[in-house]
Structures are given as structure tokens and as C-alpha cells.
């Protein structure tokens, strides 16, 4: 693979030849899905956020070689892609637990007791501290800024599930649903 293909983005998976064990994300159906989306935008760069979502969907996070792959596929530089990955908080730059928990602790939720919910979740999941993954690999817990559901304090997200009105008392029952 030459630098030229990496820049023009004609080959799926261009640019990650430094990692022979890497399985490209954008092959077959996934690649087709991305290319189909291309019709929605006047530039290929506009596919970057959607492409990163697809990587995270497939791998659970955005590993370094995937950054090179996405750069190759979209005709961008790895630096451009990495800059974007690190700007947005929802892209994981390291592996996380099977269930990723985000707890809103911004002012309105803080007023309504979000800190107690946070403490309870850290304890019940065994994560202990923010950003850490539980020893069994089941949970990772983070604080998140405003989830936009302030009237339903405290909202939390577990992967894509949005759960409202969480109180410390409800935490064990909620976590039980995520085995």
C-alpha cells in the first residue's frame, strides 16, 4: 500500500499496515453502508463523525489503528481524525466495560441529588472511582455534563439506554438488568 492510496482513500483499510493483526472495520456491508451515506454530504470529510460511530459500534471503542483506517477511507490525515476523536467526549479512546454508565451531575441534577446517585453507582458497580472499569469488566462509570433531561433528575445512560428519575435506592435494581 502506498502513501498515495492512503491519501486518496481508494482502498478500504489504507494506512494501518503497521498493525498486521488489525481487522478493518470498513469492509463488506459496513463499507457499503458508509458509502451509501456519502450521498448525503457534499464532502467525504463530513462522513467522519458517522464513520467513528460505526467504528465504536463494531469495536466498542476507537483503537489507534482504526484512526488510520478511517483516515485512509475518507482521504484525511490520521491527525485530522485523531483531533476529532479526542474533541468529542462520546468516542472512547480506550476500552470500556461492557456497560458504559454516564451519570448527569450538572447543576439541575446536582440540586436534585445526583451526587448521591453517583456515589451509589460507583459503590454498587465495584468501579470505585470515575473512569475506572469494574474488575469483572462489566461496568465503566463516568460523570457526564447535562444529559438534557433536567426535569427527570437524575438521568443516567447505560450504553444506549436512557434511564430517568434515578435515585440511590433504585440503583441496585437497575444494575441487575445489565449482566
Amino acid at each position: 500500500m502506498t502513501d498515495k492510496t492512503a491519501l486518496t482513500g481508494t482502498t478500504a483499510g489504507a494506512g494501518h499496515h503497521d498493525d498486521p493483526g488489525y481487522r478493518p472495520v470498513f469492509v463488506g456491508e459496513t463499507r457499503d453502508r458508509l458509502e451509501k451515506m456519502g450521498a448525503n454530504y457534499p464532502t467525504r470529510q463530513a462522513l467522519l463523525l458517522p464513520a467513528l460511530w460505526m467504528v465504536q459500534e463494531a469495536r466498542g471503542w476507537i483503537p489507534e489503528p482504526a484512526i488510520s483506517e478511517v483516515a485512509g477511507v475518507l482521504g484525511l490525515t490520521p491527525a485530522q481524525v485523531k483531533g476529532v476523536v479526542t474533541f468529542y467526549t462520546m468516542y472512547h479512546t480506550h476500552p470500556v466495560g461492557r456497560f458504559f454508565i454516564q451519570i448527569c451531575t450538572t447543576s439541575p441534577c446536582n440540586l436534585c441529588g445526583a451526587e448521591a446517585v453517583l456515589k451509589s453507582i460507583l459503590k454498587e458497580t465495584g468501579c470505585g472511582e470515575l473512569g475506572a472499569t469494574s474488575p469483572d469488566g462489566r461496568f465503566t462509570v463516568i460523570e457526564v455534563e447535562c444529559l438534557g433531561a433536567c426535569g427527570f433528575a437524575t438521568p443516567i445512560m447505560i450504553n444506549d439506554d436512557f434511564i430517568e428519575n434515578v435515585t440511590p435506592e433504585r440503583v441496585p435494581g437497575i444494575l441487575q438488568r445489565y449482566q
Partner: protein
Amino acid sequence: MGFPHPSHTRETVVLSKYFGDSAARTHDGWVQRGGYQALKKALGMTPEAVIEEVKASGLRGRGGAGFPTGLKWSFMPKNDGKPHFLVCNADESEPGTFKDREIMRWTPHALIEGCAIGCHAIAAERCYIYIRGEFTEPWKVMSQAVEEAYAKGVLGPNAMGSGKRIDMVLHRGAGAYICGEETAMLNSLEGKRGNPRIKPPFPAQAGAFGLPTTVNNVETLAAVPHILVRGAEWYKGLCLSNPKSTGTKLISVCGHIQRPGNYEITMGFPMKDLIYDMAGGMRPGRKLKAVIPGGSSVPIMNAAETEDCLMDYEGIVARGSMLGSAGFIVMDDSTDMVYQVYRLARFYAHESCAQCTQCREGTAWTVKILERMLAGKGKQEDLQLLLDLSEQMTGKTICVLSDSCAAPVVSGIQKFPEEFEAYVKGSRTPVMASV
């Protein structure tokens, strides 16, 4: 309605009429409820006539800035031969605000209809709806509705048989408050970091992909079909105070309040009645201390300022704050104002894109000084230092995130000086670990 509660008799239910009614989510359900009549009507009008109608209604942007919508549309170039875009700002993330979420969850076709009318008005063939990444449920509902709208011929190359092409693309954000700022949103849409752009050029000249673009908030666009069907005069008549603020507004009430929820009021409704009547007032035994009426970016009001305040753009300005996005955060007398100001500053420090020095440094230092104060290590001069810092953060940056951080700091110190003094003088027990 005061979703999730039943409608209050004093609400003016227009946008929220079908909140909680899942049958309104489908195309057929929407049509049965009078949906898509407005789009049909609009497509039979000239774009200029649509803009004039919206101008005459007095509708102003519901995202926070309150800019007249019809006027904004009229800034788009005419017959320039370039593609135009409408971008719907569904990146709702202003702390305290949760209205656009309900519009998308319950009445997705209202938004699609409003967007389609907007496209016709500004001669855009494509609308991007930029939805914040955390809104997984609104995303699903909207995706289904857009798919259905295509299947039913509402969208596509021959929108409602008009011969006009109207496409709608949902674009998912990935977690960044700043992308709610319109030019940051355009950068994000283009696959870049969400850094706000210097204006001019304004989006109407060079917006998404360098092409003429209008960015409108969800609630603004959802109001447009009602104006088209019931007329500008009707909308203009929804006004309890002054003719500069017309129509209804969804107020997201949250914090220390008995019945948090979205209440739809006519512009000019008394703030006191919103708090004590509609939203049920304070918890038993508690008294009102402060409100932040327009999302966390506007100045804090003390209880006295809420007494005779009218809920509209001018009414709240007259009492020292702003209507903003109408995220209405209520704080009772159990609230530690210093801690809450700190919590807000922390939000802005986290969300700063770090392009501008005043914001990057200012938000971070504001947090550090407040942390020191809360740890019992504040100095008397810290209060002035915070005010000086806030002044340097106001009106000096590309976007207003920096100003938004300064607003609660300055208003907090001015309106609740004794609480800040108490930490500095050591008469209040520190609430944070030593820093």
C-alpha cells in the same frame, strides 16, 4: 402540557398538545391530527410569501438568541445558483433545558414539517437535523419518522407532489456542548472539531460546506406549521405583555420544584405564577432563593427579582437576566450558591473548546479559585479577582461560552455576596477537600 404532568389550565397548548400521545408519532397519526396541512399550504405559496408570514407572526428564535426567524430567512441569497442548506439545531444541551427532546420524542413529524417549510422558504433542497449524541431515543423516533415521511412522499424528489426536492438527513453529534453554537455545529457537521467560527461571514453567506445556510432551533421550526395554518395574526395575538415577544414558549422547569416539566406559556406570563401555580411551588417548608430563567448561561435572579417579572424576552431582561432557551432552574433556600456557581463554572471549563485564551484560561481559573474558596482557603481579594476575570471573559471571544461562564459568577457574587464572604472569612464550613 406540563409534560410529564397533565396540562395545566393556564397553559397555552400548541407545540406540546400531543406530548405523551404515542399515536401522534406516526405519519398517519400526525395527519389525523391536522399534520402536513401547513406544508401543503406553504408549498403552494412563494418562498417570499412564507417568509413574510413568519416575519409578520413575530416568531423569534427559541434556541436562546431570540433573533426574528423570518428576518433570518430573508438574509439568504436569492437566485444565486448555489445549493442552500437548512440546519436544524437539535443539539439541546444547555443545562436546564429539555424541551426539544420532548418535541422530537412525541411529535417528530411536527419538526419534519417545520423543517420542510423552512427549506421551501430559503430555497434549500436539503435539511440536516443535528441531534446530540446522547439523545438515543429522540434519534430513534426521528429516524423512523423521516423514513416514513420519505415512504409517504412528504420528503424526496417530489415533496408532497410539489415538484420540489426536499431531503432530510439526521446527523448524530458525539458529545460536545459547544456544538450547539451554530458555527461550531457547522464545523462538526463538516467532520471537524466543533470550534466556533469567526463571524462574519455569517452562515447565510458561507455556512455548511461554505454554502448559504440557515440554522434554526427545533422549537422555532416546530412552531412554523402552526403559523402557516392558523395565520400570523393568530400567532401575534398570543402575547400578554409587549408585541416584541409573541407566541408560545416551552419552559423547562427543573431543580427544587414540586412538579418539574415542560410548561407551554403565552409570552408575557407572570414568572411567579409559573413557579407557584403551574409547577407547584417549593418543596414543603422551603422558600425560593434564586432562579436561572434561561438555561445556565444567563444571570442568576434572586427571589425578589422574580416577584413581578414577566416571562418574555424583554420582561426578563428588565429584571436583569434573559429568557435564553427557557431552561428554568429553581433553587430553594437549601442551596449553597457558591457551590452551585462553582458547579456551573466547572461545566463551562469542561465544555470550552479552548480556541480563545480568555475562555480556555478564564474558565479554568474561575474553577480553581472557586475550589479554593470552597475548601476554606479563599482570600478576600478572590471575590474581586473573580469579577475581574469575568470581565476579561465577556465580549472578547469568538463565541459566548466564555460570557456564559462569567454570567453566573458575576450575578452570584453580586446577588449573594454574603455567601461568598462566609467562605472567605471562614465562618462557613468548607465543603470541599483541601486543594
